[in-house]
């Protein structure tokens, strides 16, 4: 089959590789009909994860049709149209039982790698480096899905791929991030990053009762989408100081909650931005946390900071003094996709949201190298790419 393989920093290629096969009784094989590139794939593309190996198949946002089932999978059938959560979860451990699916104890065969850095390992993920399991991803014609009896969600007839594809990751991720904002009536939510997760964060914050949502970015077409389609007020941080603007826009009190939908490759300005880029380039710091620093400082006293943006390692110069003295709460985590799948599918079915509005590019799987290139550099107004095998 054809698959998008990582071969080194900014080097992805479409290789011909063997088809996946059933390995464990709870596996399924999916013939992929749609797959997307996630902003978090760019962290791998840019070489910031030291546990990637040449030849690894990328991709964790994919859906398709069941073509083969392991002997223990009884709740789906060959031919079913399914969406696959990006987190791999066993469904029977302490964490899965508590609806904390992305913290599954049993899905990461390389848990020891993560334990050395994080103490304990979260769940295995598709196509997201060896520290999260080294599972082959879904930017391919076929994929093997472990624990398929908990990790496949059937799609009702009448919904297109584009309407449901983002249930794999970014729609639940934006939604959980908004839920983590602990939104109360009258609240203002500030969101750093107007990429796909930020856009869905805006929409979800409104769904959960936010009075106002203010989005922060510097890319004109992303700010435009945030304003016109996601209905946020916007701040271009290259034109004004985001913190000052937020203070003025919120009556001098500050946003009630702040969301970092940017993560480890934030673009800073001035000396601070230079500091982080230099340290990251020298591998003295794995992550550049500009957005998170700003979110902590901008948040009102007693507010909540929600972090859907991906971090993998260590950061410098965190304003913990502001965090502690202002009595903030921070909520974060990889998304518990299994928890949000059905409620969000219902919102799609009843027309509350059609997530396909963020798609700017529809390309063939073979065009993946080009797709990564334009997505990374935000060329051609690229916000979200869907690949068709």
């Amino acid at each position, binding site marked *: 089959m054809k698959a998008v*393989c990582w071969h080194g920093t900014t080097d992805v290629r479409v290789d011909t590789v*063997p088809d996946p096969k059933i390995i464990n009784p709870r596996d399924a094989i999916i013939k992929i009909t749609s797959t997307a590139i996630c902003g978090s794939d760019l962290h791998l593309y840019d070489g910031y994860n030291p546990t990637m190996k040449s*030849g690894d*198949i990328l991709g964790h946002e994919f859906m398709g049709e069941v073509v083969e089932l392991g002997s*223990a999978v009884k709740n789906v059938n060959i031919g079913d149209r399914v969406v696959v959560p990006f987190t791999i979860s066993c469904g029977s451990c302490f964490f899965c039982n508590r609806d904390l699916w992305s913290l599954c104890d*049993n899905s990461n065969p390389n848990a020891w790698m993560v334990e050395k850095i994080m103490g304990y390992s979260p769940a295995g993920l598709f196509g997201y480096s060896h520290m999260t399991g080294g599972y*082959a991803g879904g930017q391919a014609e076929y994929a*093997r899905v472990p624990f398929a009896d908990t990790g496949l969600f059937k799609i009702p007839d009448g919904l297109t791929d584009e309407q449901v594809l983002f249930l794999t990751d970014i729609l639940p991720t934006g939604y959980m991030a908004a839920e983590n904002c602990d939104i109360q009536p009258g609240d203002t939510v500030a969101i750093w990053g107007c990429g796909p997760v930020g856009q869905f964060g805006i929409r979800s914050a409104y769904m959960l009762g936010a009075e106002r949502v203010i989005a922060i970015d510097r890319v004109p077409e992303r700010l435009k989408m945030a304003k016109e389609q996601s209905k946020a007020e916007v701040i271009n941080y290259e034109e004004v100081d985001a913190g000052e603007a937020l203070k003025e826009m919120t009556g001098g009190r500050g946003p009630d909650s702040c969301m970092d939908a940017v993560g480890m490759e934030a673009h800073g300005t001035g000396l601070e931005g230079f500091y982080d880029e230099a340290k990251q380039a020298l591998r003295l710091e794995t992550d550049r946390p500009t957005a998170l620093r700003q979110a902590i400082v901008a948040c009102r006293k007693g507010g909540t900071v929600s972090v859907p943006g991906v971090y993998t390692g260590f950061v410098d110069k965190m304003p913990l003094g502001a965090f502690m003295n202002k009595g903030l709460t921070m909520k974060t985590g990889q998304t518990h996709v299994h928890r949000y799948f059905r409620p969000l599918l219902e919102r799609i079915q009843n027309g509350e949201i059609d997530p396909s509005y963020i798609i700017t590019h529809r390309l063939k799987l073979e065009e993946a190298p080009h797709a990564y290139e334009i997505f990374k550099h935000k060329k051609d107004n690229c916000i979200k790419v869907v690949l068709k095998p």
Partner: protein
Amino acid sequence: MASTSQDKQNQDESNETGRWASLIGGGAMVLMGLRQRSLRGALTAIAGGTLAYQAATKKGGIQEALGMDKTITVEKTVTINKPAAELYRFWRNLENLPHFMKHLKSVTVISDKRSHWVANAPMGASVEWDADIIEERENEFISWASVEGADVDNSGFVRFKPAPADRGTEVKVVMEYAPPGGAVTAAIAKIFGEEPEQQIGDELRRFKMLMEAGEIATTEGQPKGS
């Protein structure tokens, strides 16, 4: 009446055995309490009482008699979301162990107490030993030790302790083994890994996967680009 030195020794031995029993049954880290004792000696002492006090001290015990001064001890605990009885039953059938202990080729049960172990060594070779169960308490505890003449002298225990509020079972493994040196050392390193803590930890994790999820997560055999 003044106590004799024999009384004193009996007293010490009994205190020590009691301390060990409570250490193994409790929530503390067992190896922190090992001090100068060999694990084998301590396990034997708890099971059989007096005979073992000499053997329980490293200096002058079996270790020194065999010229082994470099024992390796490992302790690992994992909580498994299953009742102790179910986990104990699986483990007590020692022939099940190779399902999750990757380095084991086979375990053959010879009698109620004795079993024969075969482990993979480099270059297709293998190392073998017989082990006896020293003590077992149903659904709670199994301790074992290799018998004389083993390629790898080893001993240890596994303990199943219900976690509070139906949070599953805490499974603790404590092992001690003595690399005999020479040519076999390389084989031992392979068997127990260069980082024995990690190896035993990984085996316990695979046991947990097998018990909770019904299978062991793996990517062996999946496709990749060249």
